[in-house]
């Protein structure tokens, strides 16, 4: 069986700066993987390369065993992305935004799916309001709806919790975990508490490399914190 995601020798250079250094990472299907690391460790860059926003300088990404290329629209539509940017147009209503994205993802029965996902993120009542009038939490929920709209088998979340209150955060993870489709989730985070609760395994990145990988077999928050600081300071 092929991996859901497999990176081979991924390197991303910005001028002389290497944001990713020969990253090799494979993730099994239906797993939830957390990526931890300081700011500038390469977490966001990795997510951006996996979501095809960014082109790796060297190396390849495989999705379900097939190489991910910019013009392979079929493969790319298996990926959903939620970042700290909402990717929503403030002049359009929630429904119009989702409708727009459903045409980009070429959905079969968009109206039905849009209503369904809007109900799931508790925004159905406000579906015709302009996104510009939404609160931060609502925007983030709609953003999640946008990422899940096309039922991606791989979901990438780049610091999804930024700026969210506790309730919205819990709803977010609730939806990610209970959504009907089978999917692999990769998320970056600074929050150890939710990480230990949610992930199946986690990796720690440092200066563009993956320096630690571990399964989550009931690890506690304080254990994780200890491992995290050991990894970051110990191997200096």
């Amino acid at each position, binding site marked *: 069986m092929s991996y859901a995601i497999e990176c081979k020798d991924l390197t991303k250079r910005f001028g002389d700066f290497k944001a990713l250094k020969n990253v090799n990472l494979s993730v099994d299907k239906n797993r939830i993987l957390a990526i931890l690391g300081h700011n500038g460790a390469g977490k966001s860059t990795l997510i951006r390369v996996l979501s095809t926003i960014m*082109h790796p300088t060297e190396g390849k990404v495989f999705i379900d065993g097939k190489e991910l290329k910019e013009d392979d629209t*079929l493969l790319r539509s298996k990926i959903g992305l939620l970042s700290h940017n909402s990717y929503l*147009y*403030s*002049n359009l209503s929630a429904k*119009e935004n989702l409708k727009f994205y459903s045409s*980009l*993802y070429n959905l079969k029965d968009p109206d039905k799916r849009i209503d369904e996902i809007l109900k799931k993120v508790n925004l159905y009542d406000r579906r015709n309001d302009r996104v510009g009038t939404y609160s931060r939490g609502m925007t983030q929920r709609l953003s999640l709806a946008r990422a899940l709209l096309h039922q991606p088998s791989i979901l990438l979340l780049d610091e999804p919790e930024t700026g969210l209150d506790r309730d919205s955060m819990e709803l977010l993870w609730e939806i990610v975990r209970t959504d009907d489709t089978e999917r692999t989730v990769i998320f970056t985070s600074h929050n150890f508490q939710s990480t230990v609760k949610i992930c199946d395994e986690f990796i720690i990145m440092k200066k563009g490399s993956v320096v630690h990988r571990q399964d989550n077999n009931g690890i506690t928050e304080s254990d994780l914190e200890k491992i995290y600081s050991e990894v970051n300071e110990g191997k200096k």
Partner: protein
Amino acid sequence: MNYWKAVFAIAKKDVISELRNREIISSVLLFAVLTLIIFHFAFTADQKTILSLAPGMLWVAFAFSGVLSINRAFISEKEDNCMEGLLASPVSRDAIFLGKAIGSIVFMLIIEIVVFPVFTLLYNVSVINPIVILVTLLATIGFVSIGILFSALAVNTRAREMVLPILFLPTVVPLIIAAVSATSVILDGGKFSDITQYMLIIVAFDIIFVTVPFILFRYIVEE
């Protein structure tokens, strides 16, 4: 086909979003009309002179209000980084280019629809003629297409407001020359056969400067 569905979705999204608050289009239209009015103070001329100046006046109005409008084409994508959302969606980069270009062509057409009658009304010189309209429409395609490429480039620089005009205006010189000359000939009572050489320039420009930005756009939006 998926490809065109995405292209038109992008264009439609831009048009709906803009028509909702009319932020840009209303000021661009006002600017276009103001240009026409300023001409009156800049040149005091009789009917005959106005007729010979008309093609130039029209294209000065189009060119400058066009710059203003095209300059804003990527502002909505910058806001909350929507461009990334487009790049992450399974749509090729050139489809994004076409979608943005078609959206901007619609705005350009709105400008033209307003400028033609206003000019006719203000100067009592009819510039509304099927061939003149055809010339304008054809010139609009190449004009917007190269403008969108440069606009995408401009939003990614410092001083983005300045970049588009200094790059765009010299590049579209051929279009402006050909469109102005063709319009002059027609308003002078010429026939379509008198302007074939200008039409050829416009069509050649359109073909070249739809193809080239279509290919190069991906190199602007990449990271």
